[in-house]
């Protein structure tokens, strides 16, 4: 079994032609990492930023708070399990890390009507002057819990539990269909 080939299988449908071909683009992010950071209940974002400053220097990525004392640390680098273990071990006990790279999946929705598309599922006000680039929220898109992050002028990243990937993919396409 030593010559066994490992594939990291994406939960999103393989059919890339299903992506938006008109005004709306829908793109699965198949690479990168998602760490769930859990701080002791006296941890603030500034402390966490300082704590992870060393490992983040070469990892890139950003911190997105999902709850008090909890953050997702999300980046596009591909990391080995050993590297993740090293990073985890390097953190002080006030900050626990659990790898969610496989547990949470991301896709990017963009296009001029992206806010109208997301308004079909999310209550959050995503207006340009209300929801700034880089801002994130944990909320729901329809019945699916999701973290929505604004990544560009008219671009949002949606992160959901892996098991919902197919439903999310389907729903976002349906919501965007009228604009394509």
């Amino acid at each position, binding site marked *: *079994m*030593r010559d*066994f*080939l*490992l*594939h*990291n*299988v*994406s*939960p999103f449908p393989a059919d890339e032609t299903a992506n938006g071909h008109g005004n709306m683009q829908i793109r699965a992010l198949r690479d990168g990492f998602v760490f*769930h950071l*859990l*701080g*002791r*209940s006296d941890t603030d974002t500034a402390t966490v930023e300082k704590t992870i400053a060393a490992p983040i220097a070469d990892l890139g990525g950003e911190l997105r708070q999902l709850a008090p*004392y*909890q953050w997702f640390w999300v980046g596009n680098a591909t990391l080995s*399990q050993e590297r993740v*273990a090293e990073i985890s071990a390097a953190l002080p*006990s006030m900050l*626990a890390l*659990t*790898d*969610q*790279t*496989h*547990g*949470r999946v991301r896709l990017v929705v963009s296009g001029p009507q992206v806010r*109208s598309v997301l*308004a*079909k599922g*999310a*209550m*959050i*006000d995503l*207006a340009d002057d*209300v929801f700034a680039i880089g801002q994130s929220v944990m909320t729901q898109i*329809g*019945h*699916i819990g999701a973290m929505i992050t604004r990544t560009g002028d008219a671009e949002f990243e949606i992160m959901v*539990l*892996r*098991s*919902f*990937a*197919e*439903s*999310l993919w*389907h*729903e976002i396409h*349906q*919501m965007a*269909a*009228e604009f*394509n």
Partner: protein
Amino acid sequence: MTSFRIDGGTSINRDDVRQFSFNGEKLSGFGGDTVASALLANGKQLVGRSFKYHRPRGILTAGAAEPNALLTIGRDGRRDPNTRATMAELFDGLEARSQNCWPNVDFDIGAVNGVLGPILGAGFYYKTFMWPAAFWEKVYEPIIRKAAGLGRASYDPDPGYYEKCWAHCDLLVIGAGAAGLAAALTAGRAGARVIIADEGAQLGGGMRAERSMIDGKPADIFLGDVMGELISLPNVDIKSRTTIFANYDDGVFGGVERVQKHLPEAEINPNRAMERLWRIVAKHTILATGAEERPIVFGGNDRPGVMMAGAMRTYLNAYGVAPGKRVALFANNDQAYDTARDLEERGIEIAAIIDPRTCPDVGYHGSARHIAGAVVRDTAGRKGLKSITVRHDDGRDEVIAVDALAISGGYSPIVHLACHRGARPVWSDDHAGFMPPMDADGLTPVGAVSGVRGIVACFNAGANAACDALVGLGISARPALIGADVAGDHVNDPEAAGAQDTLPVWSVPSARGKAFVDFQNDVTASDINLAMREGYDHVELAKRYTTNGMATDQGKTSNVNAIGILAENKGVSPGDIGTTTFRPFYTPVSFGALVGASKGFEFQPVRKSPLHGWAARNGAKFVETGLWYRSSWFPKGGETFWRDSVDREVLNVRTNVGICDVSTLGKIEIFGADAAEFLNRVYCNAFLKLPVGKARYGLMLREDGFIYDDGTTSCLAENHYFMTTTTALAAGVLTHLEFCAQVLWPELDVRLASATDQWAQMAVAGPKARATLAKIIDDDLGNEAFPFLAAREVSLFGGKLRGRLFRISFSGELAYEIAVPAGYGSCVADAIMEAGKEFDIAPYGTEALGVMRIEKGHVTHAEINGTVTPADLGMGRMVSAKKDDFIGRVMNKREGLLDAARPLLVGIKPKSPSDRFATGSHILNVGADVRLENDQGYVTSTCHSPNLGHTIGLALIKGGPERYGEEVVIWNGLAGTHVTGVICNPAFVDPENEKLHA
């Protein structure tokens, strides 16, 4: 066929001819027409039959309040019953049908109910169908269902797509008449985020019926200009065809937008919603919904040809439709005289203006005969109006031949949305109507809804209200100066205003024949009088006794008149009677819009295991478990009956080795310095000393002492634990733990993260499980190095991958659960299949898993059903006596929970192997009668055991293990069967746990 179409019409486009059919007859209209205006233009006054008496009915209004003209529009899945013809836009190819008539609208057998009128009065349903009870189901209901009823829903699925959306704004403006437009423009120019919603296809509201020049322009040109400016403002969102139907709490309004309902089928974009349900979050709201004209209650007021004066004016001016050749007006207010003026201007003969006031509108200088101090007491004509009978002030009757009658009994502000949150409207004698409560926070009624009359005044009020509202939001605005100059806006000129205000005429005392209050539910003035005489004079009782206001129009044209009649008879003010409660929805909303996209496959999201694809490739049959799809069995080589597959899978695990997807089990990562202490408090058994690298079975109690869930928790490192829960309670357990951590013991350092989706987890079970896994796992799996309940990270494929391995077993076999990052799951499962090939490995599903756990006597939520304690399941000794505190500790020791007579877990099998029994069967002692007091317990789980070759079960039975070997009766009350069973040890297989520790 006579055409009633004359020239003019601000809303229609005569170059756009549209064909449609009404009850099969081919007709034509124009773009911009409603079905109602097109029918009237074609001389179709009779459009339906009434609900109870099947009386011929025509079009009464030109808007949302229409009680009569309910049609079924469209066909097959796109058929919409009970559509108000006054709101439905005409499109090419539209098919409309009358309802509530058989065999047809012109000849309706049900009209005999008109003759039976006296026995169909108020309270009819309550009085007539009381007894005998059996008659209700067999006789009365079928007859009522056949004779009455509105349109029928289609049996075909609606092919249209529907959706629900959220929207946000600073200012929501409801209604796009003069007040609403001025408010929207004012706020829009100030840069506020504005949503203006109107139920009409075009903005303008009542102004569309206006012939006056506004700011020197005809109404439609003026409206076009305003619309153009609003469209040019990016911060203004115009929602036409959108009815705001509810005012929920916290500034959230519900609305329904008819996106494509007005399009012929060929033009419908299947990717766009037919209707959209909006939830609008508004910081402030301007309510500019206007006022509803009230009918007058007199004899025969429901005859086709009788129409609201304002509606008649709308059909005339907005649609270029003449109401008839010779028209009369019966009105008690000045505003209605606008209709007379416009009719005269268009050369339509006015036979008479009948006004109950002695000193009517001094502003009227037309040529029509004017009869003051008089009323209309009766009408004549079979399917259309032929004449009216006027009662003069001297008591003399006069019959006047007319083919249309405009009526106006005053105006009721459309206060619904101001009252949905519980506030009550306030009666005003000055306005002869119920005014909106003015103290509703975040909502400003403005324009006709707050009693403002005249277009100029409404423009002003709207603009000023928007300025005031924006100040509250920190936005400064200047009133938009539009509509300052409206020719002939006599209402605005106090000098020219009427000498006498609206004189309420709740019902005409001399009315002859049926005088309708509620047209849609066929409630007459005498019904309301009867209700009063019988003691139902409270407004809510009168409503239910007479059914006034309970039809699909919710009494928009009838409620205030009914209140007026009650008030008049009691000699009090309508304000003393008060209104019934206003609740959503303002107008009917389709089920399609309420359901949105959640139907069929989209009914709810689906959760798929990372091994779903692997299971599918191996031929799995899936079963829905909550949102999850789980593989339930894997048919092989011609197996067609599920149990053939399940039996084979079970035997294969017991003899060789099997692999099962257990990824859906809940998984929770637990961190923190106090994690062990936390676990010790949430489990009833001890967890404080669980060593690193070990798993432990745990029982979680509820605070009331009963079992909540079970599962295993492993200690992966100091201050790092990994908990598994049942699939069913994965979310519930996490929520429970969060409650404990955040609410009960926030002082503990414990941090919880759901990790269910991170891992693909496989159970590998059977005598060859170790041999199989040893081929892909680098670590030593021997009993010494990796004993039962070992749990730790391992290396796979010569260091290519790291996973978590747990030596735990649900099947009772030598078994492991291996968890790897989800994306690698299907590769690892393939590798295990490959490794186990030489041992005849086969996948098994949840059915086989279920059989094996029953064979082994392991419990699930079939046993942990909310009524059992650890002791009931033979696990009483797990409950720690040493711990100071844990959830459920105190209540678990309650007297009732320690009762020796409690049913205890046992196994049960048939005395004769060929007998079968079902889950849910009750246990009786041999020879005992089937009586509750003889109940010994019940069967919680059953299956066919392929190892034993007969049915086995788990049961909760009084006396429990003490009764092993005793014969009992297994009684199935549903199937009516009695089977002799034998109570036994629930561990049917390997009771000594030799296989487990192999």
